């Protein structure tokens, strides 16, 4: 089920009513309602894949309890067993065909007469997200940073909680478990803010991202026939699209969770207002970057072993992060390129120079900040070409044309209305950059607040696109 669908518009009020009115005050019943609702939500896509999710839940639920009851070396083996089992599911569905394709390619190149058939299976939606969420729980239990959850219902709803089930944020047990155990009392301010966040997420998805997608899809589909300047337009619009698509989803997820009294972790912190790529990566898909930091970078030694160990680990997490996104060399290249961007900052010890909010206490950025933001956006845009391209050949051809002389001609694509909407969107984000989401206007007086709501609604009413575009990150 998509958040921007009619089905969900019917589903959400029903779950809301069941949660607060039928089960009000009874925590276990509320959790049970959330679990059943999450199953319904998930089964709208490919129903039988719920069994895969159930298998992963059973493995890690028992692994957690087993780990807690065990001492000594055996614990490590339980952890390995759990990680291998969980990752095996991910491997079969997401990476098996990638390795087979590469093996077959090499085999053909070397003249071996032996190829292996690829699997004809669809990737369960959001598999990478809930796999990582389950892994973090088991690893935390292993490290004695988290108590094993004995209640199967609570553990199941932790993995399956529908607002963040298919595209994150990748939650941590220490944040969510206490919320599932706590008695819920309806909080008007939290729910109202949830609605605002939901509205903003919907706006960025269906007004900005999906309108950008129309042009982006055309430009990337016929890039060979376009000028370099048009390709720059396509690449820049894709930068906007992917941010609005994914942050839109995250905002909707956080907003919906708030309606049920939950606070999920912030996933985006206005990344395009970053002064360098290091800051960008602290603000982009934060639940994944902190996951890699905690469960890959730090165990590998982090920055403790000197500069070169730090460089090695940085490359590892960026490349693995790219591979997490998809079983395609384009994602690996995207991760690698971002590591290359990161490298000079790391070597010069400047990767943590911009940790505060940009233009703090000021209305506008200064010249240096503006240049920093522009360069960051430019670098990110170039990298996104790899992310969007079908394969490496397309990515390189696309980039080659972007840097050809035809980049100095007038682009064929000029959508002024979309341009105005993007400008308005950036302004709202800029002025709301200190808040968890840009539409947090709770501090404004009523008439101003309502004017903002009406303006956002007008954007949705007149300019939204509802063409069943899935969220880009669903495929991961």
């Amino acid at each position: 089920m998509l958040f921007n669908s009619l089905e969900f518009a019917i589903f959400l009020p029903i779950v809301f009513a069941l949660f607060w009115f039928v089960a009000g005050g009874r925590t276990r019943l509320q959790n049970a309602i959330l679990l059943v609702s999450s199953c319904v939500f998930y089964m709208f896509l490919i129903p039988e894949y719920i069994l895969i999710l159930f298998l992963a839940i059973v493995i890690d639920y028992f692994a957690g309890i087993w780990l807690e009851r065990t001492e000594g070396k055996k614990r490590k083996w339980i952890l390995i067993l759990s990680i291998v089992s969980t990752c095996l599911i991910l491997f079969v569905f997401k990476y098996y065909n990638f390795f087979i394709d590469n093996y077959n390619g090499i085999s053909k190149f070397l003249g071996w007469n032996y190829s292996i058939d690829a699997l004809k299976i669809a990737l369960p939606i959001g598999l990478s997200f809930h796999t990582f969420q389950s892994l973090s729980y088991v690893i935390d239990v292993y490290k004695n940073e988290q108590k094993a959850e004995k209640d199967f219902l609570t553990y199941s709803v932790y993995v399956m909680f529908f607002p963040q089930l298919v595209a994150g944020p990748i939650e941590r047990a220490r944040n969510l478990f206490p919320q599932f155990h706590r008695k819920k009392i309806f909080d008007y301010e939290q729910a109202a803010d949830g609605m605002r966040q939901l509205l903003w997420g919907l706006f960025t998805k269906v007004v900005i991202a999906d309108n950008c997608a129309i042009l982006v899809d055309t430009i990337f589909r016929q890039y060979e026939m376009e000028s370099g300047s048009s390709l720059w337009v396509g690449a820049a619009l894709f930068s906007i699209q992917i941010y609005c698509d994914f942050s839109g989803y995250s905002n909707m997820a956080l907003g919906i969770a708030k309606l049920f009294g939950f606070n999920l972790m912030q996933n985006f912190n206005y990344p395009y207002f970053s002064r360098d790529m290091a800051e960008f990566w602290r603000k982009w898909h934060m639940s994944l970057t902190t996951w890699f930091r905690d469960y890959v970078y730090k165990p590998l030694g982090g920055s403790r072993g000197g500069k070169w160990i730090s460089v090695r680990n940085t490359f590892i997490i960026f490349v693995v992060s790219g591979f997490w996104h998809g079983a395609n060399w384009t994602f690996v290249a995207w991760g690698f390129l971002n590591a290359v961007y990161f490298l000079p900052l790391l070597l010069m010890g400047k990767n943590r120079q911009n940790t505060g909010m940009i233009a703090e206490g000021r209305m506008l950025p200064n010249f240096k900040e503006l240049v920093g933001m522009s360069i960051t956006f430019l670098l990110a845009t170039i990298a996104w070409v790899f992310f969007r391209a079908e394969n490496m050949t397309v990515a390189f051809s696309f980039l080659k044309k972007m840097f050809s002389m035809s980049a100095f001609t007038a682009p064929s694509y000029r959508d002024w209305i979309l341009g105005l909407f993007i400008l308005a969107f950036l302004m709202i984000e800029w002025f709301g950059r200190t808040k968890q989401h840009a539409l947090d206007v709770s501090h404004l007086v009523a008439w101003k607040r309502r004017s903002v709501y009406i303006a956002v609604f007008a954007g949705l009413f007149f300019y939204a696109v509802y063409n069943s575009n899935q969220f880009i990150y669903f495929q991961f």
Partner: protein
Amino acid sequence: MKKFLTKISVALLLVFALHALAGFFAGGKTDEYYLRFTGHQQNSLVIGSSRAAQAMVPSVFEQYKDQLNYEGPMYNFAFTALSSPYGELYLQKIKEKLNPSVSNGLFILAVEPYSIAIQKTEDKNFKLPETKNVLSKTHDVNSTPNYEYLIRNYNKGWGHLFLEHFGMTTNEMVLQSDGWLEVIVPMDSVSIAKRTKGKVKNHQGSIGEYELSPMRVEYLEKTISFLLKHGKVCVVRLPISKAIYDIEKQILPEFDQVIQGVVSKMNVPYNDLNGASALFQYKDGHHIGHESAFDCSDSVARWVMELKMER
């Protein structure tokens, strides 16, 4: 909670009312299909794909109404090759759109390779393209406003319906009240060549991808059989550019033979207008130009008149 629910309810009510109002402004500029799902049942129909949707102008038939002697008005109920190839679904919708009491209607059935073919596939889960398209997603074809259609098929914010209605949008396609899809695109030679190049490339990609579908042929016969109970049926193959015509010969070489077999069996007249294809101008080689649509409709109407005289 009460405060929250009150505010949300008021907001939702306003949103709902605004959308309900917007539905009344939906019309010919909404998209290329909407109007055909509104209004009432019709007496005479044009059946086929996008070629017929754009080439058959019902008002031209209306000019010859006396000579043709049929129960009008004529209505264009053709969609696209993906939405309305001959099959169970299209026949069902034709039955719903046709006035059941009509006995002297005129029905122009356009045929082409895609309307009786099916894509070759080994996929066991393969679904016919029409089952995923507009006709399968809308149950009622005679409702004004058709909210079901708008909810399931209209892919813009409904405020756009106001903008379209008041002429604040630029529309290449306008669906006329008689079902004719009027497409106005630049018809200079450069634009035509560019569009034709793309279409030819698409069609070339279809060579070897399609095969004759006995199911579709059977439903073509069933459609003819059903319509014969309500009037006269004339089968036509509408003109296309020579380049596309030659490609279609490769896509479905047995097409002519199959259609000849069907029309003989059903005892209905058939006319392949491609003998005179050079007389018409095409937008993209595949669809007839806006101006030529009138000439093409005139040719078909005159042919039907000649048939009447022969009798």
